[in-house]
């Protein structure tokens, strides 16, 4: 195999695996949007704070790994519930900008709370997996990315089953479809809003642990949240398969772009290319690949 081709395959495989890890975070965004119509601009900060809790438990308080992971899960689930009750329920029926700004404000708080309460500076988040990448011919795969991709796929399958088969999942789809009718059918709509935020908490906690291991935990961990928007716009804001496909597209595009364009412009293409793609998607197909086609034309 020529060097060019193997370079291409390397970028592709890396992009696909990273893409699945983006999907995991985007899944948190989609779950909330699907069920409650709320837009979470603080998704990256959710992930960051989960990283802070885990790394804080491991490195500062010296807890064993399973305690740290459990702590992250429990605290993020509780946080999701409380957030819905205290903040988002009061913003139901308000203009889009109110919810957008409220979650931006929440993002600011979380960015302050992490270093203020837990620890300042950067801490690693070690997981008991091997460091050396697996070699597959010319391609090398870091184990953490493989784990991340596995977790993402497991969640996709899990949520797929949940929404298609379980009673709660069906109730949640009803809530997403039409809140008034769902209420008339005896579904406790507000409870399911809370459940949606708690599920986002679970996804964000795992995303925070995986991304924290990959990047190290500090405030900049929240920047992965910026990748959520291209992913969900491409895939469709309310579609779980869309989050996976969108994540794969964004992962591949940013890796290919970074691999081939970066040498000419001096870096940074990784953060730039997905947004260009997103603008094109907004112009051509704003509701995304799998999204519901209810966008309002003005």
């Amino acid at each position: 195999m020529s060097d060019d081709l193997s370079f291409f395959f390397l970028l592709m495989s890396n992009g696909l695996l990273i893409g699945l890890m983006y999907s995991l975070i985007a899944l948190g965004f989609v779950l909330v949007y699907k069920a409650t119509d709320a837009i979470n601009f603080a998704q990256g900060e959710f992930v960051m704070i989960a990283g802070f809790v885990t790394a804080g438990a491991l490195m500062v308080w010296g807890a064993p790994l399973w305690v740290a992971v459990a702590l992250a899960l429990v605290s993020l689930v509780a946080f999701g519930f409380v957030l819905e009750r205290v903040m988002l329920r009061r913003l139901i029926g308000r203009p889009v900008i109110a919810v957008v700004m409220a979650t931006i404000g929440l993002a600011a708080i979380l960015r302050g709370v992490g270093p203020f309460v837990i620890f300042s500076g950067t801490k690693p988040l070690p997981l008991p997996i091997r460091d050396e990448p697996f070699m597959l011919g010319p391609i090398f795969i870091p184990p953490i990315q493989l784990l991340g991709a596995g977790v993402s796929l497991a969640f996709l399958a899990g949520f797929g089953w949940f929404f298609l088969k379980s009673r709660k999942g069906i109730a949640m789809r009803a809530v997403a479809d039409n809140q008034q009718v769902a209420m008339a059918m005896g579904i406790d709509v507000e409870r399911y809003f809370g459940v949606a935020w708690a599920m986002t908490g679970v996804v964000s906690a795992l995303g925070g642990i995986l991304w924290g291991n990959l990047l190290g935990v500090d405030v900049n961990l929240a920047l992965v949240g910026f990748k959520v928007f291209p992913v969900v716009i491409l895939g469709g804001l309310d579609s779980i398969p869309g989050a996976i496909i969108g994540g794969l597209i964004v992962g591949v595009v940013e890796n290919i772009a970074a691999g081939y364009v970066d040498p000419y412009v001096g870096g940074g293409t990784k953060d730039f290319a997905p947004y260009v793609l997103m603008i094109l998607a907004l112009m051509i197909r704003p509701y995304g690949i799998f999204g519901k086609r209810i966008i309002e034309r003005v």
Partner: protein
Amino acid sequence: MIHRECGVLKTTYEADMGLYPLPIAKWTVAALGVLFVVVIPLSLHEYYLSVANLVWIAVIGALGLNILVGYTGQVSIGHGAFMSVGAYTAANLANRLGSPWPVNLLAGGLMAALIGAIVGIPSLRIKGLYLAIATLAGQLIIEWTINHVTFISGGVQASIEVARPRLGPMVLSSQRDMYYFLLVFVVLGIAGTMNLMRTRVGRAFIAIRDHDIAAEIIGINIFRYKLLAFAISSFYAGVTGVLYTYFLGIANYEQFQIGVSIDYLAMIIIGGLGSVLGSIFGAIFVTLLPIVIRYAMEAFGGIFFAPQTVLNLIPNLRLMLFGALIIFFLIVEPEGLNRLWRNIRSYFRVWPFAY
């Protein structure tokens, strides 16, 4: 403004519609004029004047964003990027052509208006959340372009030095000179916005915000007016960027990153969407917040925290308070400080009698 109307009975429509409802109102305006033109610049220390200058710059930017978000109802998370467009246009013109500041100011504003209108094009097809994300993309793409195209950013660390503005033979170098320089533009900006909202264009903006379909039915060209709103708002942003560049003496893209866009959104939400006075209150509030926090922490922080960590905690504390205030105002007082001010005023309007 700040006066009681108790016992004042109007007998003609002319008197009711007058610019000054009471004779005393002229005196309030005059007193405010004396305060801002004479008392503040002549009595404050250089450092406090530099803070006042930052407030003035923020006021102009907040007015611009309020035209777009508050009056026209189009969400934009790209205000900081439009400022950077103005800043780099002016800096490049000043350094390459040596053009005087009025030319740079105008060119910066117009360039920002052009780019703003281009970023605003998606607003014709999409709105609400999608528009917010599209303008966020605009912000990131403009940031990246300025940072990576050396023709614009001038290479090293993407910053360009700019000479102080001159007024004839006089170089505006001290904070006091800058204060007067900026005050002129603040007055122009406030008068411009207030008057804009009384014209056909301003009324069209408000109609689009209140109901876009109804606005189209009564004959407003939504396509044109939405782009116009983006252009005017970005013109303000561009002017803000140019003024900030002259204030700092350097154009640097780090001064216009996404956090700045969010700061300006916070200003108009805390101050009050769709109000000129609210933009001013919000700009003052958000600009002073970190400074007040720093003073408070330097004074009292040692009681709660170890002295060497106090300085590191300040930015985090600022973020937490900033976010909490945004959420607080959104939930408790959606119309912002402007509403609180109006409540106080209407309480005292006929005080001490009930009516």
